């Protein structure tokens, strides 16, 4: 792989042992995936932030590092809200370890945003090269914003934060971004009524079909919140890092892109609307949780409007970024009055609080996919309207 002089200096140890090891990681990954060079990244998003997922092993590694991020770098959700962990029922021993992880990341210059939706709080431009690791954020950045990132692991994203570069392979290369499977519904008219929950269910079904391919959807007209739900679920049940929707997502609207492949020559997958509907159920649940990925401003407003004047009868968790709370205190107040609670920094999947709930209703196809294995919880998928109805009946 081509290295420049500053890379050689880092490799010789002139900039410390941490940077040397971090550059070695990037070079090894470049070798494994066939990159010819390293390219600069404009931002980094680091996963591996919850003590529940990385444990003592990850914490010990982070504490041994000594360098500072050289590009804007943001942290994924952690296992608890920083302020209100005891109210959420988090064990003090867990909270202590989680604090140590935060301290370690802060020392490395990673911004403690603790959100899976960093794109609501920073500008990401079409064509930007990134090194992001949270799978739903990767799908959103690539597909909805037209930026370019592979699905990084925690250590490789951190390496990019400390070096400022990533190996150029995979989705950084234009021709690897072209679709290789065409996905349509057997009854496209049904999708006209779909909200984010139905798009999450579609992603749940489609992710299993397409695996790590780049799907190109036809016959759908989702907005950004629906695209977010679709991508997050496909990244959970499959390894989808990029998808296109005909005439909707930014790359799919570029003439050059449209001319670069022929829809008819690609593998075709037809998804039955009945299979999407079958993801929904009406089982009894002990709690309701929304905000996987963290809610957008519009989604938070929808939840507040639906809960306005009502009282919840079972725990209702709402997950957003701290910045979203800061910007929309009025909506949070409306939600608080209902007895539901808005939590920052964490989510239903990476927090141990969910593990005790037994059964949870959510409007997220991604959470629906992860809750059984990661939290031992029986999940139920429903629309946001149904989530509020069940929580308040």
């Amino acid at each position: 792989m081509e290295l420049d002089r500053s890379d050689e200096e880092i490799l010789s140890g002139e900039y410390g042992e941490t940077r040397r090891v971090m550059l070695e990681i990037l070079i090894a990954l470049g070798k494994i995936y066939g990159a010819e060079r390293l390219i600069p990244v404009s931002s980094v998003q680091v996963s591996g932030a919850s003590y529940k997922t990385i444990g003592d092993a990850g914490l010990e590694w982070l504490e041994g590092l000594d360098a500072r991020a050289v590009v804007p770098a943001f942290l994924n959700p952690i296992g608890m809200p920083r302020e209100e962990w005891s109210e959420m029922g988090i064990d003090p021993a867990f909270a202590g370890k989680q604090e140590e992880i935060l301290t370690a990341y802060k020392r490395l210059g990673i911004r403690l945003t603790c959100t899976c939706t960093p794109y609501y709080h920073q500008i990401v431009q079409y064509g930007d090269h990134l090194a992001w690791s949270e799978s739903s954020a990767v799908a959103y950045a690539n597909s909805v914003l037209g930026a370019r990132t592979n699905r990084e692991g925690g250590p490789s994203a951190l390496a990019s934060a400390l070096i400022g570069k990533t190996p150029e392979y995979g989705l950084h290369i234009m021709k690897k971004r072209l679709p290789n499977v065409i996905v349509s519904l057997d009854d496209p008219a049904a999708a006209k009524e779909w909200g984010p929950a139905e798009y999450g269910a579609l992603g749940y079904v489609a992710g299993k079909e397409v695996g790590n391919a780049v799907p190109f959807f036809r016959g759908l007209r989702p907005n950004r919140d629906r695209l977010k739900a679709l991508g997050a679920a496909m990244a959970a049940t499959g390894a989808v890092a990029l998808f296109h929707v005909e005439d909707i997502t930014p790359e799919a609207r570029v003439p050059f892109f449209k001319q670069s492949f022929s829809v008819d020559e690609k593998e075709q997958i037809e998804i039955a609307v009945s299979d999407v509907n079958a993801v929904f159920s009406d089982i009894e649940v002990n709690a309701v949780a929304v905000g996987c990925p963290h809610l957008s401003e519009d989604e938070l407003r929808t939840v507040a409007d639906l809960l306005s004047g009502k009282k919840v009868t079972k725990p209702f968790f709402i997950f957003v970024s701290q910045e979203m709370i800061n910007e929309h205190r009025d909506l949070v107040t409306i939600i608080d009055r209902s007895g539901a609670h808005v939590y920052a920094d964490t989510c239903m999947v990476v927090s141990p609080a969910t593990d005790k709930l037994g059964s949870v209703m959510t409007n997220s196809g991604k959470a629906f996919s992860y809750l059984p294995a990661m939290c031992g919880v029986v999940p139920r998928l429903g629309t946001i309207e149904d989530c509020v109805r069940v929580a308040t009946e």
Partner: protein
Amino acid sequence: MIIKGRSIAKGTATGELIITDAPISFLSGVDPETGIVIEKGHPLEGISIAGKILAFPFGKGSTVGSYVIYSLKKNDCAPAAMINAEAEAIIAVGAIISRIPMIDQLEGGLSSLKSGMNVTVDGDRGELICKDWANS
């Protein structure tokens, strides 16, 4: 005899080779306190990889496996070196952050290797050196 491969993580180590044709998940597959393989039904189940030259096709399972390799090293029960048929990110990252020499893509693959051989992994040059090749 020297078998050419590819360097993944730098450093050199010599030891007893232990080889399996099954992929390894370090998270939940290897006990970080002892280095003993604990995955049920794995060909190496119950066997310690501590201090050995560990050859296996590739890593599987959670990306947290990289950190488990680091824990093994901290607990003095990591493999002395690793050989993969085809390296992927979990094992490669684990080897690099733990300073464990690692190579992959050996000429002729892993099939000519046998457990018990005394071998040297040269992670700088990307080579495997087998001194007792004739006897094995």
